[in-house]
């Protein structure tokens, strides 16, 4: 888990390290000074000799604050551990107990979580008896419900995982499922929570001591010192401020470190940034007939990851172009780059990126919003679950075109009818979850049609749907294109779907276009070894069942592992020496076809 050492993270780590050192060395170094009674220096304020003043026996308060560190931290640690252990046990009970008892355990946790922590702590402390032990148990009790709830939630997620079902079917005992599958997968967030809980426990214990419920003399912790000093705060504030500052500093330190760890855990590895790629060469003349005209599009992520590499593409009005390739070939990032949606810290460069003859960088959000309609694989992600379908569609027209509410609503119902949603009026008044997957995808397409899109980008719009619904949606897309004359970029990993729907196919491999050809030539005229291998791996209704199916051995290189030659070379049966060192350019191969391969010419 790599931690990014930002200012707060460093500060947290330094403070925690200092506290640890103080806990070890404090009593050894200042132990004597802290206990030395000096009848001549009772209840003094700050002086050169006693920077924080002295207490009612004339003992030096600075020494006492430094010595109290060990006890304060030890108590906090004990309270946190008690709380964590009790909480984790309570939280895991539901997954090991029989159903009835599990429900009881869950109920108990819920009730405890609802109970105010401070009351729980005070109640426990009073019952357990005044003193350090009571305070520790009290704070432990206050921490436990939070841990129990966290454990329970995390465990429930993991318990629903397929690997747990698989283990159950294999007859792996419950306790073993807990120890091998559940706990290891929830350990990280629990440990992070522990660091933060430690900071909380420290403050809580100081609070308890301050209320007189905690540490009793002659023992002392920071809270106790604060309690003793508080009565003198108007006369000599420094005697109270010393211990208060110590508590605050330690609390802040643990919280900062916990935060930094949590953030590091939530982030995936980011490697060192590298030189950005050289700007692409001067592009040739723009294509005046194209709605979408892309030249040398490149997407880079820090760490030398280059998922899209100098991609060029045009789509004409009324044309459906299919972008096909294996998972990870860069299809979605290409779409994201066109729509200006590449996530941070990705960088997009291009020689030309024109939509309707204008550079997309010069288009306002509103212009881009009406000219471009995007449809994604998961229609639920595009729809707000809390709003009615019709309202969401209407919103588009209101925001982008300033249409009146009534006009926008009418158009929404009209568009829903256009995508053949049965009973569009009734459906418009429903929420997304009341629609089936296919209906939702229709609604999203209808949403794209609310404006007058010149380009439709559909990224795997049918992958989540079964074949029968897929067929309906593909028909619908064709119909929409015929009616509106919009240019369409259709992205899919399924070359059969692309071949069926599209006019032209663009095949992508490891971030580059390797072949471009008319869709009706796929079956007979595909030239690139990768395209041919993809087609050969497709089982059809006439595939010979007595022979093994073809596949492509090996895997596509990751975006930071692409070598200088042809990226397909390690998997290609035709590869030669030259293929591994020199990269073939995309060159014309007969009319309307272009191929990037040394062995095809």
């Amino acid at each position: 888990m790599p931690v990014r050492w930002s200012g707060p993270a460093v500060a947290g780590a330094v403070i925690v390290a200092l506290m640890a050192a103080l806990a070890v060395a404090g009593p050894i170094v200042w132990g004597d000074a802290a206990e030395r009674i000096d009848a001549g220096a009772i209840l003094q304020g700050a002086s050169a000799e006693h920077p924080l003043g002295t207490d009612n026996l004339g003992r030096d308060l600075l020494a006492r604050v430094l010595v109290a560190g060990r006890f304060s931290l030890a108590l906090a640690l004990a309270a946190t551990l008690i709380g964590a252990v009790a909480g984790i046990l309570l939280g895991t009970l539901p997954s090991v107990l029989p159903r009835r008892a599990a429900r009881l355990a869950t109920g108990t946790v819920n009730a405890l979580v609802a109970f105010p922590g401070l009351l729980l702590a005070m109640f426990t402390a009073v019952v357990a008896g005044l003193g350090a032990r009571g305070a520790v148990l009290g704070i432990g009790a206050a921490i436990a419900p939070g841990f129990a709830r966290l454990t329970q939630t995390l465990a429930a997620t993991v318990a629903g995982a397929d690997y747990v079902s698989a283990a159950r079917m294999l007859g792996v005992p419950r306790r073993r499922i807990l120890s091998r599958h559940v706990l290891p997968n929830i350990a990280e967030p629990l440990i992070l929570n522990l660091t933060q809980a430690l900071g909380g426990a420290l403050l809580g214990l100081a609070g308890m001591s301050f209320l007189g419920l905690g540490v009793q003399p002659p023992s002392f912790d920071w809270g106790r010192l604060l309690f003793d000093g508080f009565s003198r705060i108007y006369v000599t504030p420094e005697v109270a401020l010393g211990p208060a500052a110590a508590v605050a500093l330690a609390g802040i330190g643990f919280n900062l470190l916990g935060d930094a760890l949590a953030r590091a855990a939530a982030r995936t590895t980011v490697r060192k940034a590298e030189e950005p790629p050289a700007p692409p060469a001067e592009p040739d003349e723009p294509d005046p007939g194209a709605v979408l005209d892309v030249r040398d599009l490149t997407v880079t992520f820090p760490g030398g990851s280059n998922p899209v590499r100098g991609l060029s593409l045009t789509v004409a009005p009324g044309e459906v172009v299919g972008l096909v390739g294996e998972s990870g070939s860069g299809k979605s990032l290409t779409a994201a780059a066109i729509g200006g949606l590449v996530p941070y810290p990705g960088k997009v460069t291009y020689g030309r990126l024109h939509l309707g003859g204008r550079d997309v960088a010069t288009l306002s959000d509103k212009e881009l919003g009406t000219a471009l309609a995007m449809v994604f694989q998961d229609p639920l992600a595009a729809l707000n679950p809390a709003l009615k379908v019709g309202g969401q569609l209407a919103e588009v027209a209101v925001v982008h075109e300033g249409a009146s509410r009534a006009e926008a609503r009418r158009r929404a119902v009209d568009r829903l009818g256009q995508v053949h949603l049965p009973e569009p009026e009734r459906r418009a008044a429903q929420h997304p979850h009341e629609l089936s997957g296919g209906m939702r995808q229709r609604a999203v397409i209808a949403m794209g049609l609310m404006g007058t899109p010149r380009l439709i980008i559909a990224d795997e719009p049918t992958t989540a749907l079964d074949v029968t619904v897929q067929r309906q949606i593909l028909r619908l897309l064709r119909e929409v294109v015929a009616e509106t004359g919009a240019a369409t970029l259709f992205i899919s990993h399924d070359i059969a779907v692309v071949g069926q729907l599209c006019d032209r196919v663009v095949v992508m491999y490891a971030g580059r276009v390797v072949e471009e050809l008319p869709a009706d030539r796929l079956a007979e005229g595909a030239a690139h070894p990768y395209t041919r291998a993809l087609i050969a791996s497709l089982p059809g209704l006439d595939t010979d069942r007595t022979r093994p199916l073809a596949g492509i051995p090996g895997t596509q290189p990751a975006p930071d592992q692409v070598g200088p030659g042809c990226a397909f070379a390690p998997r290609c049966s035709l590869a030669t020496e030259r293929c591994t060192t020199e990269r073939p350019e995309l060159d014309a191969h007969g009319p309307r076809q272009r191929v990037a391969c040394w062995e095809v010419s």
Partner: protein
Amino acid sequence: MIIKNLTVRFGDFTAVDDVTLEVPDGQVVGLVGESGSGKSSLARAVCGLVPYTGSIEGARRVQMVFQDPYASLNPRMRVGDTVAEGIRARDRDSEVKRLLELVRLPAEVAGRYPRELSGGQRQRVAIARALGGDPGLLVADEITSSLDVSVQGAVLNLVRGLRDELGLPMVFISHNLAVVRYVADVVAVMHQGRLVEAGPTEQVVGEPAHDYTRALLAAVPRLRG
């Protein structure tokens, strides 16, 4: 194995409606139908993961392989430990090796974590784990639908190989009839919780008797030209 009058209900919704289906020894039964037609519910009932009425006879030790190979392996467990989970034999190490070989994975992957494997490799690990439980029946629920076509072929070849080598009966679920046709000896078609047609693969695909089967066949995407 034979499933008799199987019904699965969730609340008032009937997911599987009085299905009777036989899985002959050593054969692969392909189960097709659109999403929501009840395929997965039937599979889960056979595996004992959901309550049902009716009877399932002769299905001892059923194991299942899941759709998403990224969600079905414990990310914190090495491949070797995952495969060993169901193994009862004394010499686990050599058994793990044998199973990995059976699913055509090199023995060295035993020491790796799932994140270091491709989707196709993970799905093989999941199959090896299921085989480790010495199943009398293997249920494969859409095991290739989250894989690229380039690796789908290898997994389908493996499924066929297992039937030929081990004589292991299987229920193979998919919504793609072309895929089912390739691996199955018998095809059963489900629609809205009911079994609408079942028979030898070539017969169901060649001369479909039910309208819904014809619709499914028409929906299989194919290249033009």
